[in-house]
């Protein structure tokens, strides 16, 4: 696959299946070019890492499961994603798209016995089917407009293509987990086994965005409303995702919500590319597209790194609940190191890869602000900068929480106390991804050089990225590293016994118990309080005892948070359908007389129609 990626970057390759294989009205054909090769490369790297990770993970997994099925489904899943990336026409796309969806749905239920995973799979299946239905509609529509199934011949320039474009956009948003279609994501990703969630979160939702770029952006979509809609959705999901992540205390759910945030970022970048193209700023457009693609790759890397880390924790500490973890840094140092690298990358801290793509997004925004002559566009761009800053601040909050509560401090439970380091395969996989993160962080120009041709094909005279990106990241990284080492060795390191070990300071109150540490809930309470209305967040504290002011006997705090979107929108919709179903079956009472009555009524109706027509 890597070879294919490299190959594709050099030259465009088109392959059409030979005659016996033919999808009735369109051939099964694939097309490999610079864009697809980048994603193939990402897929390849992550596939390699998870396949080294899986064996170690599977050993500690539930016994009910059938591993041959697991591997087969995984294979199908990867094939499906590859196919979607390579598909050259709508029908091939649909084939692989559905293969991807169904196989991943099965992968979610790898643990056959658990009810949650089944529920998650059903929710996911429903969501993805709705996406497919929208896609079908959009594709058929486009076909009747363009009279071709080839993506290459689809042009979204005419006004008549707005609605199909919207349908396709929504479909990809559902698959990509954009707000408000993200509901399936926080269920599906945690329920799946960690390698799978790494693959889903790392690649699958990127594949949806890839399809967005492939079909809409490459199709030259130029509808102002759609672009603005994308921007709005992107901003909301970036914010909502990180907020949700802050509210979560299950490690994998937290990561899942963060995927929503990053997908939102990517969508923002894509929409900026479209908008700046509409503003006749091809340079900026190219930059934003590059940002989108680059962030896809980066997020793929560090998110799967984090998921693998979470998986290691899950298998070795037998819990994903932050409140039960703690002090793992001691028992699993390497996992800890990789997790810190991943978190730093996702918080976009230099000199890691997350920063570079985010920097490109910021640059795109300010460039639009600089060059647009409309006050409003510029204003919106700058405000977006502020929002992104807020989001990245929240991201840091969230990941310091994750690391601090899970890995630092002292174990909060027996499980955490007896945790052990993951085996070699697991660590190798994470190491590989971590190295990729650092490499892409330090050697951004190389990555940008790979992305360059895509932007050039998408927008004529797009930016020359090597000129845009001017930060000598490598040098700075080197300086910081050297300075740190120097300072550390000159003062902090424990040479002449200048370091005395001692217990944590406790005001001389008496030794600290592990329950005196901060909880994840408490750590994130500030944000929860600030954005309480959005999550219906409220606490019920109950302090009882004779002298409850000074010597309370027992203190209990209950926290309630619910998602309006689920409770007010999707829930009722599902209920409605179910209600319909339950009342339709009442027609079928089993009485033959009633059935004959139906017959009679139909007969009369038809006769009347026959007479009247």
């Amino acid at each position, binding site marked *: 696959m890597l070879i294919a990626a490299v190959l594709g970057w050099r030259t465009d390759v088109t392959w059409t299946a030979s005659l016996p294989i033919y999808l009735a009205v369109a051939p099964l054909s694939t097309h490999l070019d610079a864009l697809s090769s980048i994603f193939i490369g990402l897929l390849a790297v992550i596939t390699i890492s998870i396949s080294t990770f899986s064996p170690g993970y599977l050993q500690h997994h539930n016994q009910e499961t059938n591993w041959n099925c697991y591997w087969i489904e995984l294979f199908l899943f990867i094939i499906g994603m590859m196919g979607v990336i390579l598909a050259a026409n709508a029908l091939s796309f649909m084939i692989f798209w559905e293969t991807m969806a169904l196989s991943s749905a099965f992968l979610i239920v790898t643990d056959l016995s658990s009810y949650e995973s089944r529920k998650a799979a059903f929710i996911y299946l429903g969501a993805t089917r709705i996406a497919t239905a929208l896609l079908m509609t959009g594709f058929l529509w486009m076909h009747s407009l363009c009279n071709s199934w080839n993506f290459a011949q689809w042009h979204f320039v005419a006004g008549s293509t707005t609605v199909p474009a919207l349908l396709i956009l929504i479909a990809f948003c559902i698959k990509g987990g954009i707000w408000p279609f993200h509901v399936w994501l926080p269920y599906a990703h945690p329920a799946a086994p960690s390698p799978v969630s790494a693959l889903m979160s790392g690649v699958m939702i990127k594949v949806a965005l890839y399809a967005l770029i492939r079909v809409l952006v490459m199709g030259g979509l130029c509808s102002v409303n759609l672009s603005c809609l994308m921007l709005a959705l992107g901003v909301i999901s970036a914010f909502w995702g990180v907020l949700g992540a802050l509210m979560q205390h299950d490690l994998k759910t937290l990561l899942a919500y963060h995927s929503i945030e990053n997908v939102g970022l990517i969508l923002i970048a894509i929409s900026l590319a479209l908008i700046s193209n509409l503003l006749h700023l091809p340079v900026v457009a190219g930059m934003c597209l590059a940002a989108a693609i680059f962030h896809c790759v980066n997020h793929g890397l560090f998110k799967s790194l984090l998921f693998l880390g979470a998986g290691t924790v899950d298998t070795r500490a037998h819990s994903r609940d932050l409140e039960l973890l703690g002090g793992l840094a001691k028992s699993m140092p390497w996992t800890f190191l990789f997790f810190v690298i991943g978190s730093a990358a996702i918080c976009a801290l*230099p000199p890691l890869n997350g920063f570079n793509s985010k*920097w490109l997004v910021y640059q795109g925004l300010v460039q639009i602000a600089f060059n647009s002559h409309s006050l409003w566009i510029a204003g919106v761009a*700058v405000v977006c900068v502020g929002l992104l800053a807020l989001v990245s*601040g929240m991201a*840091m909050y969230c990941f310091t929480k994750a690391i601090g509560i899970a890995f630092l401090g002292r174990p909060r439970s027996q499980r955490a106390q007896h945790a052990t380091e993951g085996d070699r395969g697991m660590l190798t996989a994470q190491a590989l991804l971590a190295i990729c993160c650092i490499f892409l962080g330090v050697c951004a120009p190389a990555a940008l050089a790979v992305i360059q041709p895509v932007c050039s094909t998408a927008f004529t005279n797009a930016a020359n990225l090597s000129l845009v990106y001017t*930060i000598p990241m490598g040098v700075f990284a080197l300086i910081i590293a050297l300075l*740190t080492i120097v*300072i550390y060795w000159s003062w*902090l390191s424990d040479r002449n016994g200048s370091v005395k070990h001692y217990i944590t300071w406790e005001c001389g109150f008496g030794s600290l118990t592990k329950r005196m540490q901060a909880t994840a809930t*408490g750590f994130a309470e500030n944000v929860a309080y600030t954005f309480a209305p959005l999550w219906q967040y409220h606490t019920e504290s109950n302090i009882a005892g004779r002298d409850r002011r000074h010597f309370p006997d027992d203190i209990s705090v209950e926290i309630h948070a619910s998602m309006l979107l689920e409770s007010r929108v999707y829930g009722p919709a599902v209920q409605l359908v179910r209600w319909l179903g339950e009342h339709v079956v009442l027609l079928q009472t089993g009485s033959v007389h009633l059935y004959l009555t139906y017959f009679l009524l139909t007969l009369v109706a038809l006769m009347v129609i026959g007479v009247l027509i």
Partner: protein
Amino acid sequence: MTLILKYALFILCLALLPFLTIGWLRKIKALLQGRIGAPIVQPFFEFIKLLRKSQKVSETTTWIFRTAAALNAATMLLAAFLVPWLSFKPNFGGDDLFFLLYLLALPRFMTILSGLDAGSPFGAFGSSREAYLAMLVEPAMFISLVALSLLSRTTSLSAIFDLSHRCSLYELPVWLAGALALFLASIVDLSRMPIDDPSTHLELTMVHEAMTIENSGKNLALVEWSYFLKIVVLYGLTAQCLLHSLTYACHFSQLIAGVLSIALLFALAAVTAIVESVSVKLRWRAAPDFIAYALTASLFAMAGALIGGIYVTHNL
């Protein structure tokens, strides 16, 4: 010749100003409170003293705690070399504003983690609050700096803060509002009053101090030093904004500009001292309201920059 002089001068300032500024700040506070107070160079002595002391480290901690101080110091040093916080700071390039803002986020990340590392409740309080404040204050920082960058259509700080072009009428409000926003934001970021009272030692209320409660000896020295550096960098940047708004009135030679920028730095420190002695610490829940002022100021700056820009383009 002048180049070498410039470098020497800058290194000198970098070495001295952090200690002097904080010393000066404390001195003013003492005077306002009717005490004589320690000499201005006192912080420097304390720094040396701490460097000589050995450090106590909790067994709970990991390498994060051990290396955080060093990494912070290194990063702050790099930042101090890149951010144009003095008019005569030689230009080393690579001073993109987003890069620098995220570079400043790196030590924050490490500090928060080191606060959590010992597993002590106080450190956790501090870290949580620090993260919260940072989250709230970053939009203000970003927007104000972007607003300034709108004036010179570039994101390179040294270009933005280039004194060679004088500030026109429509740029004046932008610079002022920007200065205000930056100042307020820095107050929060440096966790000074009225957000946090660095001189109190009630763990439950502290932010920065609580976070670094476990540090001692050499470790503490480095933490303190990087904190001092942060003060001068942020206040220096604010001072530069003020300096620019002054250029509306008259044009400065390099010398005066340099002197002014240091003077303004001290002035800001003095203002901080006054604020800290006349105001009381805000309730924690009220902190966002305070930060809202910073955000509003930055938005003003943005609006000014945009409208002014339109105005200019139409007049051209």
